[in-house]
């Protein structure tokens, strides 16, 4: 009974950490610019594959691969802004929401397919992973899971500091609260958008490496975390970072539990029912504030 419980707990916390990372990337972009990035999944995959290329194909050390995944993710985010988002921002807010979603859907498909064409569909092994486990009495903690949780905690701390303490973070938060007011106070909103997308791309790169180290590299790698991250964002209220992290861990634990009790195929449907129940009860999400919009 005890080892079942710890197994569920370990699985839940690890996937929770991964979901939290995916969720933060999405939620950051939504919160500050009202953009739902459907290409996030493909950016995750891109991060995983860049680490593979650098370490396995080119034989560079693991740390370079990890850094490379971050850089390539950030570049992808930057390109997304320069090529797509910048041009769509000229339209008004309601059209922007829908248009940017459709455009990123297209980019996501194209990117995923480009990865499929470059690397092929067969699953590959992520070189950045740890083997072995830490045994403490009846409990055995795989190093891989510990690594993921530690990396995610460290990353969360960095993001929190970045948003809370730096000038850039203040600008991002000001833009998220009120775009026009921030602009009037002298915040260069466009460069904030650029920074947010670069940051979210970098997070996606790390997240892709972490997710693929748990499973394997395959072109549709990012889709499952992204779908779940969507659900977690919705539960927490889109754009709410601490809420998103809490929802990610809570729902991942629930998923691990349901998967153990009722079988793997019921994990996702259960999450969905929880989400629908939450949304009927609180349409703006658990932690979301009801927005009053002026017409």
């Amino acid at each position, binding site marked *: 009974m005890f080892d079942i419980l710890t197994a569920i707990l370990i699985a839940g916390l690890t996937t929770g950490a991964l979901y939290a990372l995916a969720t933060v990337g999405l939620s950051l972009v939504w919160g500050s610019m009202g953009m739902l990035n459907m290409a996030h999944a493909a950016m995750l995959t891109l991060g995983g594959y860049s680490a593979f290329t650098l370490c396995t194909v080119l034989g560079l050390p693991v740390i370079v691969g990890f850094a490379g995944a971050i850089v390539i993710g950030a570049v992808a985010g930057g390109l997304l802004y320069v090529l*797509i988002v910048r041009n769509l921002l000229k339209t008004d807010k309601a059209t922007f929401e*829908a248009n940017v979603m459709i455009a990123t859907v297209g980019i996501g498909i194209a990117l995923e397919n480009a990865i499929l064409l470059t690397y092929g569909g067969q699953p590959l092994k992520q070189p950045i992973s740890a083997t072995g486990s830490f045994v403490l009495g009846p409990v055995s903690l795989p190093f891989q899971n510990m690594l993921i949780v530690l990396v995610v905690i460290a990353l969360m701390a960095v993001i929190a500091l970045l948003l809370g303490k730096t000038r850039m973070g203040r600008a991002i938060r000001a833009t998220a609260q009120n775009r026009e007011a921030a602009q009037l106070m002298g915040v260069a909103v466009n460069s904030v958008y650029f920074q947010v997308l670069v940051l979210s791309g970098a997070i996606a790169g790390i997240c892709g490496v972490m997710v693929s180290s748990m499973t394997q590299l395959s072109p549709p790698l990012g889709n499952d975390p992204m779908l779940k991250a969507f659900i977690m964002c*919705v539960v927490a209220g889109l754009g709410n970072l601490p809420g998103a992290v809490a929802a990610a861990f809570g729902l991942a634990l629930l998923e691990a539990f349901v998967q153990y009790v009722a079988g793997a195929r019921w994990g996702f449907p259960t999450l969905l029912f929880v989400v629908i129940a939450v949304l009927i009860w609180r349409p703006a999400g658990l932690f979301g504030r009801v927005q009053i919009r002026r017409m």
Partner: protein
Amino acid sequence: MNKTSSSKGMSINARIDLLVSLLLIAAAIALPFMIDSRYVMGQIVLALFYATIASQWNLLFGFAGVFSLAQMAMFAFGGYATAMICFYFGWNVWAALLPGALSAVVFSLIVGLACLRLTGVYVALLTLAIAQTMYLLIVTDTECFTMVGSICRQFTGGAVGFARFGDLGTRALLKGQWLAGNYAIIATLFAVTMLVTYIIVKSPIGLAFRALKDNPGYAVARGVNRFQAQLLVFGISAFFTGLAGGFYAAHFQAIGPGILSMSQLMFIIAITVVGGVGTFWGPLVGTIVLVAADELMREAGEFRTLGLGLIIALSILLMPKGLVGRLGDLLSWLRHRNRAAASAITFQEKPATTGK
């Protein structure tokens, strides 16, 4: 827009719509006599399905502003319901089509009750999650429901789906010409769907849908019930989509979970976006362009999906209102230029035409 120009514009637009539909009907009747290739005919029938689904997604998103990503789920629900009624109860396909479509409506109303209290992207995310759940539950279904011979059948058909549950009866009736018969049936389905959509869009309730899309606050203040109106359009759209799903199952004599895949949904979205979101003829134009592009890219084989993704992104960037929207811009620009040439006072008119 002031009142006189809008009423005058309506009548011109209505006349254009009438002319276009008459031409299309003539072309549709002439088509089977001009094409001998079975492959081309088959692709045209498939394109008609795409056009029907896209027109209903356009009604939902383009006219009523409900960003639902469960469109293929409604289609699959109608198709599956029709197939399952035939498979388990041995009904004739024609008798099962209406119950199939109605069950899609019931499904859509349940989904709508859960989702339509929300707005914008929340609706999109939740409907996407529901469609994915439906796909996962069907694909991972391994429990035996009935035994067919020595083969185990799952209740939902599992990853294989259903086959051999009956057809539209054209094979028995027309023998070698059955494909033309099916073409006639599906073309009629498309025409009826378009006609009903046109009536809805032009009716007072259609105006309410559009008002909710353009300015929700104002529409609600003028007494439009957002939840009821959107639930209604969700149900209407699901009826025709589900009906098309039933016909799809009957035409191919098979249905499987593949139609729920993301790429199918993307194709429908791409059709609507390229043709023009919120324009009546957009889905049809988009279908013609994208099915043709798809056939051309078939030569390029594996680059097909890549090309499709780029087409979606580029057309949103370069022509947010789609091909039909661009054409409309061109027409109004020409009309405006003619009027400007005719009258001496021109400087005040410019913003009025660019606004819509």
